[in-house]
């Protein structure tokens, strides 16, 4: 009996100690982060109201965490102007793209760790499942700039009519297309391919001439996924209604003949060395240099790449590069993606007002124009009142590809959140560890896991 008493007393002592520790920690937690969202309450009431956030002033620092390549030089210049105007410093924390989502999600799970603004890809399933914006982001529906943002962009960054983020991106000219070296094509008598067979022949001709056909930055882990998922319009054209069927859990990626064709062609290109012998070490940051040197004839990039190359290498003229769509599975449809890298204000931030002021500053018409004029990668911007000037080659592309389709990472649910996983399994496919059929089956499996976890009705 006595030993039982002693154990009981010891246990009581431990519980009291535990309660004391929890109690000591509680007030800090309450002020630092809002309570987790309850699913049965409207999202707008879940995040802290703007009025609760402390005012900001000179000396305030807002921390902005984003993936490599999402924060452009022009934005960093604007951030300096913002600091001059308000005294608020923007601290950019740029994470390598192959690690970004792991780092971000771990930080968000750990209570934010000092984040004020975080970057994320827009798109309904992404912001709901991957970023959980209903819990993690401050609603911005009442901000004036939302009315000026392209409605397609607003739709991709909103849930149940509430806008959670800011997208400043070239969502039209930002389409991922093949940028090719016109001189290399002309020297080897190659014209713009319209089928995969023509494309493969062009690659072989270039390789025989000593030019590596395609610069593909595999090392970043995300870029090569474009070859597979940006082909959404051709998958849809071959099987109309496929995206809806996938979202309703009435179709699968596995066994889809068009997808298998695209993946087999991609593997064939890798095996034939069209991406070069050291392709798995290629980095996205070296794209301009690689294309400017003329060692490579093509790469998958945006309308803005020629301008970026010319800016970095003035000897290389901008009009040396043209555009055509990725012709896997004989695709001739322009792949458009209204979703893009976006910014969100973390709901647990102590500087919500300062972050809102930063967003307001960035979206002023003169600053948006500054962004477009000074960011070579952007040919257009997704905001009203910004004047864009297209080059002859950009206009030629628009005139050639009249038919447009939505990419599958946006059209199909539970695809974009697994982007890096698809990248990993595609690399495994290139190295021979898995087959194209495995790539499709694994994509289905991850979709199923996410859908079940999210309680999707179609998977019940």
């Amino acid at each position, binding site marked *: 009996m006595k030993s039982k008493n002693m154990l009981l*007393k010891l246990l009581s002592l431990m519980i009291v100690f535990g309660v004391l520790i929890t109690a000591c920690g509680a007030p800090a937690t309450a002020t630092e982060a809002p309570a987790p969202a309850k699913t049965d309450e409207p999202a707008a009431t879940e995040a802290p109201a703007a009025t609760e956030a402390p005012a900001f002033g000179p000396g305030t620092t807002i921390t902005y965490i984003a993936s490599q390549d999402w924060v452009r030089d022009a934005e960093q210049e604007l951030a300096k102007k913002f600091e001059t105007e308000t005294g608020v410093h923007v601290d950019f924390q740029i994470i390598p793209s192959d690690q970004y989502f792991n780092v971000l999600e771990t930080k968000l799970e750990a209570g934010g760790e000092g984040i004020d603004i975080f970057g994320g890809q827009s798109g309904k399933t992404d912001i709901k499942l991957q970023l*959980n914006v209903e819990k993690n982001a401050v609603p911005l529906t009442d901000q004036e700039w939302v009315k000026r943002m392209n409605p397609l962009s607003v739709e991709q960054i909103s849930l149940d009519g509430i806008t959670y983020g800011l997208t400043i991106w070239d969502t039209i000219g930002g389409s991922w297309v093949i940028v090719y070296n016109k001189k290399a094509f002309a020297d080897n008598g190659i014209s713009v391919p319209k089928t995969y067979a023509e494309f493969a022949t062009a690659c072989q001709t270039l390789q025989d001439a000593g030019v590596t056909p395609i610069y593909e930055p595999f090392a970043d882990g995300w870029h090569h996924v474009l070859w597979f998922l940006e082909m959404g319009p051709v998958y849809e054209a071959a099987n109309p209604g496929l995206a809806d069927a996938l979202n309703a859990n009435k179709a699968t990626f596995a066994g889809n003949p068009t997808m298998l064709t695209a993946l087999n062609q991609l593997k064939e290109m890798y095996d034939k060395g069209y991406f070069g012998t050291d392709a798995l*070490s290629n980095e996205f940051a070296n794209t301009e240099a690689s294309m400017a040197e003329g060692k490579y004839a093509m790469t998958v990039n945006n309308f803005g790449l020629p301008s970026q190359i010319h800016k970095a290498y003035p000897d290389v003229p901008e009009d040396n590069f043209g555009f055509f769509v990725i012709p896997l599975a004989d695709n001739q449809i322009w792949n458009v993606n209204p979703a893009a890298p976006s910014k969100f204000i973390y709901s647990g931030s102590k500087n919500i007002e300062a972050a809102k002021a930063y967003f307001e500053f960035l979206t002023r018409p003169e600053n948006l124009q500054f962004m477009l004029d000074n960011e070579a990668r952007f040919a257009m911007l997704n905001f009203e009142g910004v004047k864009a000037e297209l080059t002859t080659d950009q206009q030629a592309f628009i005139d050639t590809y009249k038919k447009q389709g939505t990419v599958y990472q946006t059209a199909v649910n539970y695809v974009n959140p697994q982007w890096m996983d698809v990248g990993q399994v595609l690399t495994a496919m290139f190295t021979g560890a898995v087959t194209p059929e495995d790539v499709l089956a694994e994509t289905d499996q991850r979709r199923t896991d996410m859908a079940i*976890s999210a309680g999707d009705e179609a998977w019940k």
Partner: protein
Amino acid sequence: MIESVVGLKDLFRPTTGMLYFVFHDGKLKMKNKIYPFYFSVGAIILYSLFMVIPGLLGFYLSFTDWNRYSSEINFIGFQNFALIFSKQNYWHSISNTIIFTVVTIVLKTVIALMLALLLSKGLKRFFNFHRVVIYLPAIIPMIVVGIVFRSILHPATGALNEFLRGVGLDLLAQQWLTNPNLALYSVIGVDTWKGIGYIMVIMIAGLQVIPAEYYEAAQLDGANQWDEFWQITLPLLMPTLTVTTMLNLLYGLKVFDVVWVLTNGGPGYATETVYTVVFKEFSKGRYGVSTALSSLLFVIMSICGYWLIKMMHSKELET
């Protein structure tokens, strides 16, 4: 033989007895010899709160479907473990972890022992300088090591391949981090380079406590250096080797950072280890699976650690 049954008054009564528990007639009894029990209460509470309870909670959570997308946590039995054992990728990460551990233990022990012998018995001048140089990689942050070696091992522009091509050894120039058959061994190489200094220092300390008289006596008996190594150095170094092997074993099974900074588990899944998978699963919000993997690794580590200590302790006793 049996002391008094423990009560609260006994706990706080200053005594001079050392404390230990005995069972007699189905009752827990405590014997005092040196210090009162309450000296340890604070430590026990802290240890329980921050080590034992989270550990047990982790084991429990590995049997649940805990994930980011749902506020409910349901007990699902061995489903997470069944998933781990049924998916090739998880198996692959476990086998990579074991290969990494075994190879790094062997390489670090052998090379560090050779360097320790060289720098404590071989070199007569500048040995401290050499010790510092070899130890230096141990204090370089892993992220720096990652950046430097990604550059050195780049297949086209890296210093290693440039050197090999420069001296006419083009055939040896490899895709060190992107060839799936080679990448894990490149990671092992970098980790060994970084880790041998630390192991070497421990071994030098172990070598220095071996009395010189043993070697003198052996020399008088006509022993050569090889005999000295096998008959004196190695047996008397066994406690040190136990420590270093245990350190290497635990480090190897928990390896994460060197893989993360060099290959991020790639190309494909070629260099995934258990902890890189745990991190990725955790960041995907699949906490149940990720804690199940951690629990599994804990069991493997406990079995390996127990087996290793038992084996090496018996060798120590033999010597």
